[in-house]
């Protein structure tokens, strides 16, 4: 099959970039949510102290 290598290269790159970005976005959101939870805990502690 002529030029099949180019076809598979294009699809491999598309999927690598899309999956990479999806993973980045979901992982980053998980970290942000953890940071929000810890800040809320810290704020609760601060209010209790006061």
């Amino acid at each position, binding site marked *: 099959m002529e030029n099949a290598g180019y076809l598979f290269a294009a699809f491999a790159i598309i999927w690598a*970039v899309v999956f990479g970005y999806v993973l980045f976005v979901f992982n980053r959101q998980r970290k942000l949510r953890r940071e*929000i939870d810890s800040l809320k805990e810290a704020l609760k502690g601060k209010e209790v102290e006061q």
Partner: protein
Amino acid sequence: MKRKILLGVSALKMVASLYLVFLYVPTEEAMGIVQRIFYFHVPVAWVAFLAFFIVFLGSILYLWKKDSKWDVIASSSAEVGVVFATLLLITGSIWAKPIWGVWWTWEPRLTTALVLWLIYIAYLIVRSFATEESRGARFAAVVGIVGFIDVPIVALAITLWRTQHPGPVIFQGGLTPPMLLTLLICISAFTTLYLLLLMQRISMKNDEIEIRRLKELCR
């Protein structure tokens, strides 16, 4: 919950797209098997244009209403749009090599598409390097509005000028029914993916704003 459903729908549509592209649609006679890149190249182009249209609308609404939620939508869409515009350039280049014998040529469609990518890279850079966040958002909104002019130029480049890029085929009856079905399913799959990524990115930006607010309160 909505995002999980959208993720599932997006995954199903992508699997359907792969089946249609690799197993269902017949091979195009002139370009052979490499022409199948078309079924992903056109959808990523469509999504990039859609994303930059959302940036355009969001930017106008942000400057008009001065409500930061529109800036969040615009900036989120710009980031996702740049990802798809990058894929557009890469898939186009890979397709060009076996057909035209070159990875790149400075013809109107490719050049205006590269300019489009650079405009939205500039949009993201203007935001990151602004000394004050609201100022960066305002400058970026102007870039997002003015830069959108390039989207119709890219779309119409193949009709306005003589180009090496293939001419319009979708609305000119140049696709057989299986090709058109495959293309429409792929466009639907990538559009769903864009909506999922946009929602996720908006949620992330809202989380970043919440973190800043909580840090202020913790001081």
